[in-house]
């Protein structure tokens, strides 16, 4: 029995602990079962879904970069109908907080999905991805313009009684402005960050490595950018932040909590170490004990104390 209270809560959603897994890196929650029992996790975020089924981009979809990974999956997913029919019945039974992730190419897309996903679906929250950089125009427009971001969130918010998590793109000049916009829109929390837009070139073939040319950069390489954005946003808005971007070790996770994240999410880190989430939970607990903190909630934003920035 631990001395540290790991439980935390994000507007309308209570979490066993502050460690989630990230959309698109954890399938529909069962793929990693043999490596990491979902009941140990604070929660999982499902692969992004769209109203219609999508086959996504051609392969190669992945390219390794120094301490990073480029992906151009292109939002491959079974579509809303199939999700409701074949996936939801299973995932709702998972013994952890299950967050659905929705992407769209028009306001109507988002509205349609929000309408279909309510509290009685058994989901814990809805993460609205307005930032997937892989699909041409895909979400990008919503994710980089404060006004449309606010609109999407507002539109989604009235359609569902599930907590709304706005997932922001880092590919913007002013992340704080985006966060304030989704707060105005009525978001209950924000997820920071999605992938940075990048590309690699195969110098032998003399063409882009990814079939889609561009891809989203994730992994340890982007951690400093993610921590910075969490830091800035936590100073500017009151909403809880789910911090992500390169988290692979418990030390990484603690950085995000100290920077102002209420919870953290592991994505690419699962590929490196499928037990990373477990080790992170344990590491956070030990860290709190060592620092004499009764609750992990005391860690949130602690590094801002006594700093003028």
């Amino acid at each position, binding site marked *: 029995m631990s001395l540290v209270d790991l439980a935390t809560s994000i507007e309308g959603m209570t979490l066993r602990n502050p460690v989630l897994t990230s959309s698109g890196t954890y399938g529909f929650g069962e793929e990693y079962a043999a490596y990491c029992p979902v009941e140990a996790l604070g929660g999982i975020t499902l692969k992004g879904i769209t109203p219609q089924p999508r086959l996504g981009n051609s392969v190669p979809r992945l390219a390794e970069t120094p301490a990073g*990974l480029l992906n151009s999956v292109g939002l491959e997913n079974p579509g809303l109908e199939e999700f409701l029919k074949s996936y939801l019945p299973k995932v709702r039974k998972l013994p952890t907080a299950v967050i659905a992730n929705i992407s769209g190419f028009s306001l109507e897309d988002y509205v349609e999905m929000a309408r279909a996903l309510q509290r009685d679906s058994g989901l814990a929250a809805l993460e609205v991805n307005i930032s997937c950089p892989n699909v041409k125009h895909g979400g990008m427009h919503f994710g980089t313009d404060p006004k449309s971001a606010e609109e999407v969130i507002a539109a989604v918010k009235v359609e569902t009684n599930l907590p709304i998590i706005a997932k922001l793109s880092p590919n913007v000049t002013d992340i704080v402005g985006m966060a304030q916009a989704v707060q105005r829109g009525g978001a209950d929390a924000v997820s920071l960050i999605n992938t940075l837009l990048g590309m690699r070139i195969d110098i032998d073939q003399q063409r882009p490595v990814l079939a889609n040319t561009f891809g989203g950069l994730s992994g340890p390489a982007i951690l400093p950018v993610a921590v910075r954005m969490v830091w800035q946003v936590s100073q500017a808005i009151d909403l809880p932040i789910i911090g992500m971007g390169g988290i692979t070790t418990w030390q990484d996770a603690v950085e995000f909590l100290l920077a102002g994240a209420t919870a953290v999410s592991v994505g690419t880190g*699962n590929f*490196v170490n499928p037990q990373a989430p477990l080790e992170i939970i344990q590491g956070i607990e030990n860290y709190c004990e060592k620092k004499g903190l009764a609750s992990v909630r005391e860690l949130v934003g602690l590094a801002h104390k006594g700093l003028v920035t």
Partner: protein
Amino acid sequence: MLTEGQVVGHECFGDEAQRLRRLVLKGPIAKSAKPGQFVAIQVQDSRVSSFDPLLRRPISLAQISPDQDEITLLYRIQGRGTEILARVRYGESLSVMGPLGKGFSLPEVGELWLVAGGIGIFPLYALAKSALAQGLRVRLFWGGENQSFLESAGLSQWQALGVQMHLSTLDGSLGQKGLVTEELQARLSQLLEQTKQVGQSSTGQINVATCGPARMMQAVTKLCLEFKVPVEVSLEERMGCAVGACLGCICTLTDERGTLIHKKICQDGPVFRGEEVVWDVSC
């Protein structure tokens, strides 16, 4: 399963110029693995905390020794990751995920024909051993660059297995000059003749398993369909999670209704029925 594989053997495999390595890891994986499955290994000792290279590398099981709790991996130094892997020494330990994917299916009875292109031979060795253990007759069709490659890539081990072999090299330095598929075609037609003579309609209980360059496996599949022989192919793609969670390694298949669908090579494969695969997208 995630385990620490202790390096109990790691040496150059064959002629150094071929840049092939043989890596033997001790661990529980062998007990539950079957031919055609693979592992995702980190390329540096697990005590080195470096995120570059970031991803694990997928390598097939070339030999499975449950009694010794050992798996053998054969790999070619291809790029940065395998170059670093090649420096790992005896006694170090590597983080290994596996066994991963679904392996080849072993027919109950009859003949198993293996068709290998280049280092596609590696996973087929484990398959051959299981097949022989089960009393199947095994025949190998193997094509490679030249004699030096075939000898470096394990020819003697195959000879020791005592399976019938049809070798071909591009330069004719060993076996037939040309492509492995020509050998396969010749042998299949010959067989069809025989079966015709005894008045059978099909070539009987023959199953083909192939691994190698996509173009080659595509040709092998085409032949097998012509001769109505069931064929299994082992596909490759870059991998992220290796467990079916990231959709990084998909291949395109046609389902019963002939509609295009995606499957995950890491989880649904790497072995698929040849006729399912839509080659011109996958490669």
